[in-house]
């Protein structure tokens, strides 16, 4: 807790309250104990209290559950990452205690279940230990059914006390969460909560209180990145989707399957990923941009049909929730190793658009943007999100739905004559008419994956293949010129420029802030549009001595990652180097800075 950790108070004396800017709390136990729930409550509470919040969790690899953590960072100021080190570690078992103590800041607080954890004397020197018989007290509280179900809520009560959290709001959240089912459940939950809250922590001498965060003009909503993306698509006007389950993409399809019917749409679970993208393309052809998506292996399977979308120039949104690869890889870990397939997947020259959201909120708006680009440029658009954004919870300002909700239903106004692949149209962009649109001339278009003439009929003409290939490429060049100007985070001149994309925006910005605080001339550059790349990057590069591309993927055959490859190829600037890792985990701010400093001190 920025500053709390420093001031170690002497034993004895009365509890005193201390103001803090932010806190990183790591909850370690087993997934079955509902530790995610504790984190969820804290996050939502922070949202309602207009604080910033970010969470991070690990998912056990076995279905039956197992050791798992949930880390939540709550701040009155801007929260950019889930935090490198925890201020407090709440642990339910010996394995949680031993496995995660190292993630605790020296001087930090260990809150442990005294029924399951025996503290280690050495560690007691380094960290402030607080033991509570969480299991036992929970069983007592709910009336000795013998099962300690609810100990997570009990622990939530403890945290509420320690961090002086808003109890009415928490109570409300608990009621909302457990409401509906039989009332006894809500009752038990509240009992556990109060038991925890009222449990006296005589041996803990301090209560922390978050400094008030500046008032937000709109309410905050709290959700994870998959939810944000799914609702963004609905807001954009998407009403049809098709997919096949795969982690971590599945919840997007599950949300759309549940929600779309309210809007007169539907989402179909298909027999495989190939059928899903084909079905989505069919619906797009039907007149309204549709969505499909997947993760890992499922994305590879979609590349053939994606190529048809590029050739036929049919709009489509494809969501890729990246996970650890290659092959089945590491399904519940994060990685940014699908940039290559997103930009180049599929045979032949098949230019498509690739965008990457940087946060949960950005996932929401990126979805809308993707839909609009797909329609405007009549092209498939890939949204390259990842497991970290998918699973982490953030609070962000509630969107102004009345303002941004889109109607993109098809238009069947008859046309006099029509050529979808018209080479003469001045914007050079293909437009399709949906079936059901009458063409007065009686000449109807065919939409096809063969090289074609302007009406969509097959051609073997070298001239047409040359022209159509250029047409498909040039519209993306035009898109690039429509992109908003890229700006650096921090001054546009300095020693080191940290270039990143996707979910690493937060850690990179935090790294920049930290370095700046220490007087180091470090700035950040976040690239959201990955294919085509925005123009004018060379000017930005000119302002720095070192350009490091920070990516969660392998350094590759030649020593740099996937975005670095694109940038080096385009700009031929040897100062562009890679900071990469493939350990399946998000960046720690410290890792980035250490690597950057080391690399900068090396000769290129």
């Amino acid at each position, binding site marked *: 807790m920025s500053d709390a950790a420093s001031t170690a108070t002497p034993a004895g004396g009365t509890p005193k309250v201390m103001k803090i800017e932010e806190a990183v709390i790591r909850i370690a136990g087993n997934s079955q104990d509902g530790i995610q729930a504790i984190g969820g409550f804290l996050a939502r509470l922070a949202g309602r209290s207009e604080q910033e919040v970010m969470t991070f969790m690990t998912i056990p690899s076995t279905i039956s559950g197992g050791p798992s953590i949930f880390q939540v960072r709550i701040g009155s100021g801007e929260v950019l990452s889930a935090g490198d080190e925890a201020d407090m570690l709440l642990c339910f078992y010996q394995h949680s205690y031993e496995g995660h103590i190292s993630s605790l800041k020296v001087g930090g607080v260990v809150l442990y279940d005294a029924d399951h954890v025996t503290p280690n004397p050495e560690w007691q020197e380094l960290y402030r230990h607080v033991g509570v018989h969480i299991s036992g007290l929970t069983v007592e509280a709910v009336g000795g059914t013998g099962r300690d179900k609810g100990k997570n809520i009990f622990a939530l009560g403890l945290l509420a006390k320690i961090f002086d959290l808003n109890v009415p709001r928490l109570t409300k959240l608990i009621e*909302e969460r457990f409401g509906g089912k039989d009332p006894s459940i809500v009752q038990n939950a509240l009992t556990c909560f109060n038991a925890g809250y009222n449990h006296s922590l005589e041996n803990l001498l301090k209560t922390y209180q978050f400094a008030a965060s500046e008032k937000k003009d709109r309410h905050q909503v*709290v959700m994870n990145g998959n939810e944000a993306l799914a*609702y963004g698509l609905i807001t954009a006007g998407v009403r049809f989707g098709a997919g096949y389950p795969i982690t971590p993409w599945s919840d997007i399809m599950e949300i759309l399957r549940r929600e779309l019917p309210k809007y007169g749409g539907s989402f179909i679970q298909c027999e495989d990923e190939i059928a899903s993208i084909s*079905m989505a393309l*069919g619906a797009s052809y039907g007149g309204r941009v549709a969505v499909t998506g997947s993760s890992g292996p499922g994305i590879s399977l979609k590349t053939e049909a994606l190529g048809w979308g590029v050739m036929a120039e049919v709009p489509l949104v494809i969501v890729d929730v990246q996970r650890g690869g290659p092959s089945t890889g590491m399904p519940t870990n994060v990685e940014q190793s699908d940039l290559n397939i997103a930009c180049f997947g599929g045979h032949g020259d098949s230019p498509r658009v690739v965008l990457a959201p940087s946060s949960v909120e950005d996932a929401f708006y990126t979805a809308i943007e993707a839909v609009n680009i797909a329609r405007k440029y009549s092209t498939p658009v890939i949204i390259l999100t990842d497991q970290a954004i998918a699973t982490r919870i953030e609070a962000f300002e509630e969107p102004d*739905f009345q303002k941004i909700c889109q109607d993109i239903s098809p238009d069947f106004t*008859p046309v006099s004559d029509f050529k979808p692949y018209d080479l003469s149209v001045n914007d050079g962009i293909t437009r399709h008419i949906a079936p*059901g649109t*009458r*063409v007065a001339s009686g000449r109807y278009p065919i939409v096809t994956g063969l090289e074609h003439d302007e009406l969509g009929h097959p051609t073997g003409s070298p001239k047409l293949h040359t022209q159509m290939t250029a047409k498909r490429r040039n519209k993306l060049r035009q898109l690039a010129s429509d992109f908003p100007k890229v700006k650096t985070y921090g001054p546009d001149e300095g020693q080191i420029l940290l270039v990143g994309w996707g979910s690493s925006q937060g850690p990179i910005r935090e790294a920049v802030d930290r370095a700046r605080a220490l007087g180091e001339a470090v700035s950040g550059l976040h690239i959201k549009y990955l294919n085509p790349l925005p123009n004018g990057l060379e000017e930005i590069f000119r302002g720095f001595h070192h350009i490091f591309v920070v990516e969660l993927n392998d350094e590759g055959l030649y020593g740099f990652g996937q975005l670095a490859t694109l940038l080096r190829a385009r700009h031929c600037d040897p100062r562009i180097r890679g900071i990469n890792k493939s350990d399946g985990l998000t960046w720690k701010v410290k890792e980035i800075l250490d690597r950057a400093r080391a690399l900068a001190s090396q000769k290129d």
Partner: protein
Amino acid sequence: MSDIAIPFAPLPRTGAIATPAAPLPVIPDTERKGLTKKEIAADHPTWCPGCGDFSVLALYFKLIEKRKMVHEKITTVAGIGCSSRFPYFVQAHGVHFIHGRALPFASGISLSRPDLHVFVFGGDGDAFSIGGNHFNHTARKNIKLTYCVMDNWVYGLTKKQTSPTSPLGFKSKTDQWGAIDYPINPMKQAIAAGATFVARTTHTNPNHVLAMMEAAMDHDGFGFIECLSECVEFYEGAFDASNPRKGGVFNTVPADHDVTDEHAAYKLADQPFPGLFGIFYKKSKPTKNAKELEINRAAQDKVKGQPDWEILKKTFDRMK
């Protein structure tokens, strides 16, 4: 990070199409007179002279004329193969998709555009080799569309390889000593998969082909027709035994056959070539289209009258 703007404003809805000169009047269906063959025929087919596919195309034209289809609503979808070139020869909205995936593509249209009836044409390889799984799942889900497989027992476009319907012993480029893999039985596969309309016909009997097309089109559900269509280039004479003009016999499904009896239908499919022609199986069962619609109705009843943005807002309120 709430400084997010959306650089790409939504296109106006009309943006989806090339700005037409002056918007044209919509012709009420009642005022339509059926289309003439001339209006509905596009490119001259690139098929080999004598290819069975010509008759299937001609009968599709007949169907369109006879049933007075509304020109702009005709939607023809195909995969890849000689037969799959079909849409290029029809002067109407059409799609030439990829090999083996025409059914899911067509399902996407069918499920999102209840106002259209989609026709899908393709070959035996497209349908039963690479496309076999989509065939089974489209059938079991009973998605409303008409699927006519032009079965020539061979891969035509790629010049004579064994197809899943090639009979044992057929000498192809991939079975120089004659095919050794047991062929599939399209009728049995369709019935076992749960198809609700299963018929068999042959290009040499125009009236029968047309009758099957009409019946399939009128069926509310997945309508599957296996239409024998000779590949004169790579499998000449394959179907002579089914062609009276070539000394063959054209036997139709017995009049007393109960088309709703799955087992009887399955048994009909046992007969050796030329087998029987006609409707083997027909059952009315709610389509996936209808079931999805029901789900929508139920869901929309709960939010009656609210504009989309309001539904979204209420949803987000629950995430505060």
